């Protein structure tokens, strides 16, 4: 899994999927080869509008992602290894067909306390 297609620039000149971005002291690991297996993807309005004209596997990913899907689920859906799913998803994200929702971790690389508390509440309510 050493495919690296992250460096392609977006039309607006911004970094599309930087290795790491820092937001208010939080480190977020982003897309590309660093996109973790649990990263969620959702179809964007652009993606849904363009889906009928996309290659079959890209179309399948965008259409499945009307419900949030993890990279792992995309891999299972297409029956391809995670590395392949990651490349397909990165390309679709770079073209504004998919939004990628990354884990929110603190400086220690672990999920932030507020998320653990919400997880605990959710599990107790089961």
């Amino acid at each position, binding site marked *: 899994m050493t495919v690296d297609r992250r460096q392609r620039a977006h039309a607006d000149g911004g970094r599309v999927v930087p290795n790491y971005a820092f937001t208010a002291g939080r480190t977020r690991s982003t897309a590309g080869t660093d996109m973790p297996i649990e990263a969620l993807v959702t179809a964007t309005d652009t993606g849904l509008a363009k889906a009928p004209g996309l290659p079959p596997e890209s179309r399948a990913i965008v259409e499945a992602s009307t419900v949030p899907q993890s990279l792992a689920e995309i891999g299972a859906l297409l029956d391809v290894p995670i590395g392949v799913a990651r490349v397909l998803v990165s390309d679709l994200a770079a073209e504004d067909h998919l939004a990628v929702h990354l884990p929110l971790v*603190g400086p220690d690389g672990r999920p932030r306390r507020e998320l653990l508390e919400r997880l605990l509440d959710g599990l107790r309510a089961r």
Partner: protein
Amino acid sequence: MDSEPGDRRVSAGGTATREARDLLPLKILIAGGFGVGKTTLVAALSEVPPLSTEQQMTSLSDGVDDTSIVPEKTTTTVAMDFGRVTVDDSLVLYLFGTPGQSRFWFMWDELARGAVGAVVLVDLRRIDDSFAAIDYFENRGLPFVVALNSFPGTDGVDVDVVRDALAVPARCPIRYVDARDDASCTDVLITLVEHSLTRSA
């Protein structure tokens, strides 16, 4: 398309729809030796039938102890079960059942990054099979709990004996679990998250 400093949006790529904007994934690893009940536990908790995904490793597999390993020329594909639990409006928890042998540690490094923690399943008839997983998580500082699977004929095994045998640190919880039972598995996850919170800044 990127967030402003201070913006809570945690996404990359395209512009998320309004409903999707706050989505966040979490993950917990379910580890332990072959046949210990990983798939069973994932199935008991998951809201969708467990799926399988594949990771490729480049070195040749040397073992035949796991039927999920399919050797190819120089690439081996490792299958991993996973399941999904919707926590609330925006949090989605993924459970990954990971093969327990130490030769899969290259995979665990990637999986463990950013994880809430791990549940190490132990089959009391074959305690040693879970030693590698405990050793790994302890070394990496990833919070974990040990879950003793209630297979037939394992009644009356003393938790302290298991703790000693597997060198489980005193602060790390050990619980019994029936991997087929949703409520029992949920209790183990709650124990893990509570434990993870005690170790969180």
